[in-house]
């Protein structure tokens, strides 16, 4: 029974990681750098939602809509301010820049919203007991929200021209370029796409637990692990990787103290990098 509960909790965490990992993997695919500010972009999305919830008393799902837009725009602004100007230099400089961006976002959140922890909705919600499983309403919302989002992502990537262009660029930048893929537009859309998904991931993380300024940074490592496990540059791989990492992190409490959950994601990541660096779905070769 405990195993079943851990599986459920793992899927909830995994679906959040998956949404973050899709963004990381597409940014890596299209722009070829590891975006270290992605976790903190998630935090921004969550805190923007919080502001609409607190000031306008909107329900979370409604407050999420403007927050998604704001986070997506912020991602584009960060790209235009910092990353765009560094693209001609080595990708590694972009990585350093994104590390600085991560710190600035986190510091900005602390300046605006303070360092304490917050919740979207106060009050106690009574968990349901189904066949020995403890299911909180919040965790169901997370699963539903993530499933809806993955469905949209799938439609976008498989049915729209822009989505296909993004996947093409992620598969082979040069080939996409000479096939007439509008590179600049794809980069812009990639940031909007990744920013929105990051916001959703952050909001769901906030719904599942609570909001603290370091919430996104603390999930960055498992998100990278998920993207690498799934195959860098592969959005469907990122979903699979996210779920697997979420499950592994929860199963780990059967063997070791829960304080070491994070290290499981790390160990899997190192293992994949050594044994199968292209990941499960044959991502970008290292």
């Amino acid at each position, binding site marked *: 029974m405990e195993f079943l509960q851990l599986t459920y909790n793992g899927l909830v965490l995994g679906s959040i990681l998956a949404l973050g990992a899709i963004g990381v993997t597409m940014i890596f695919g299209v722009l070829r750098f*590891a975006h270290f500010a992605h976790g903190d972009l998630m935090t921004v999305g969550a805190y923007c939602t919080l502001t609409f919830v607190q000031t306008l008393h909107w329900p979370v799902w409604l407050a999420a809509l403007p927050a998604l837009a704001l986070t997506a725009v912020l991602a584009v602004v960060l790209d235009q301010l910092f990353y765009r100007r560094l693209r001609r230099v080595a990708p590694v400089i972009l990585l*350093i820049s994104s590390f*600085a961006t991560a*710190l*600035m976002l986190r510091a900005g959140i602390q*300046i605006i919203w303070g*360092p304490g922890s917050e919740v979207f909705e106060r009050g106690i919600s009574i968990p349901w007991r189904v066949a020995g499983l403890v299911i909180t309403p919040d965790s169901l919302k997370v699963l539903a929200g993530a499933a809806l989002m993955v469905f949209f992502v799938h439609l976008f990537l498989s049915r729209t021209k822009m989505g296909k262009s993004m996947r093409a660029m992620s598969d082979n930048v040069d080939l996409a370029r000479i096939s007439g893929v509008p590179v600049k537009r794809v980069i812009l859309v990639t940031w909007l796409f990744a920013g929105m998904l990051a916001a959703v991931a952050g909001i769901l993380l906030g719904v599942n637990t609570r909001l603290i300024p370091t919430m996104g940074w603390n999930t960055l490592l498992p998100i990278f692990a998920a993207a690498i496990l799934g195959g860098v540059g592969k959005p469907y791989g990122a979903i699979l990787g996210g779920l697997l990492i979420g499950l592994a992190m929860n199963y780990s409490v059967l063997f070791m103290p829960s304080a070491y959950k994070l290290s499981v994601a*790390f160990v899997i*990541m190192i293992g994949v*990098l050594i044994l199968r660096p292209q990941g499960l779905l044959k991502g970008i070769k290292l």
Partner: protein
Amino acid sequence: MSTIGLYQYGLYFLTTAGIYGIMALGLNLQWGLSGVFNLGIAGFFAVGAYTSAILTAAPTPDHWGGFALALPAGAIAAMLACAVLAVIVGAATIKLRSDYLAIATLGIAEVIRMVIKNEGEITGGVRGIAGIASPFDANDQLTTLALVLAALAVLFWLVERARISPWGRVLRAIRENEDGSRAAGKNVSRFRLEAFVVGSAFMGLAGAFYASFIGFISPEAFQPVYGTFLIWVMLIAGGSGNNVGVLVGTFLVWLVWSASSMLTDLLPAGMATQAGAIRIFLIGLMLQVILLARPEGLLPEKSPRLIGRKHKSRKPSSD
């Protein structure tokens, strides 16, 4: 501030700058010379600090260790511990692309911090380790400063020698053109691993000095912001690859960072909790501006002159 207060602050400032300088030299060996990306400086710093602290602290029932050894023993052990750790981490990751190396080293630093926090019997947990002996008489901070600066000078000389030696030239060649170096018969992974291990040992030594100088360590001191990010800013501001530049960068960035705390002290009391965040925001912005405006740093890297060869003005060759 009184004269004595100023003198005390000056000692503190220079000693800390010296400790950061040692780490920055280590990072310059790794990233500046060899292109080995280390985002886990804080982890090596912490391992060095805790190794030395456990060996040199006074005996206590609160945590393991407390052997009250002298600082040199602690410092050597700190360097060895970091070197061993670097060999293990490096063996698994040194062949990876920079991005993956960055993620992996950041991860290892986080795992180290997790272990320190949770294994209270060894490390004192979140309460940390107190009562770490200073090298000579207690309160003799001038001697500590002299010791740190002497170590910094020796390490500077070593890295500078290494930079112009054949070993350093291979490292720079690998950084510039990995495939070319491999084609020239160089064992690329081995050279990169060597740079990674030696640089990490520097970081361990800095940790040992830090523990002994402050006399108290806890996991809070080894967060990525202070332990990793500041050193990267120092390296890039000063000039990655240029040892003199790196030391100048360390001094200037530490000056700016310290001065920014004086600025935020002027904030109204209601904003006191935000002061740290404002400083971090500004230092992040500073790095962004440097990357955009002057990515080569204050003192850009120069090709080393070869040892034992006088540089005459070269005549244009005829071939």
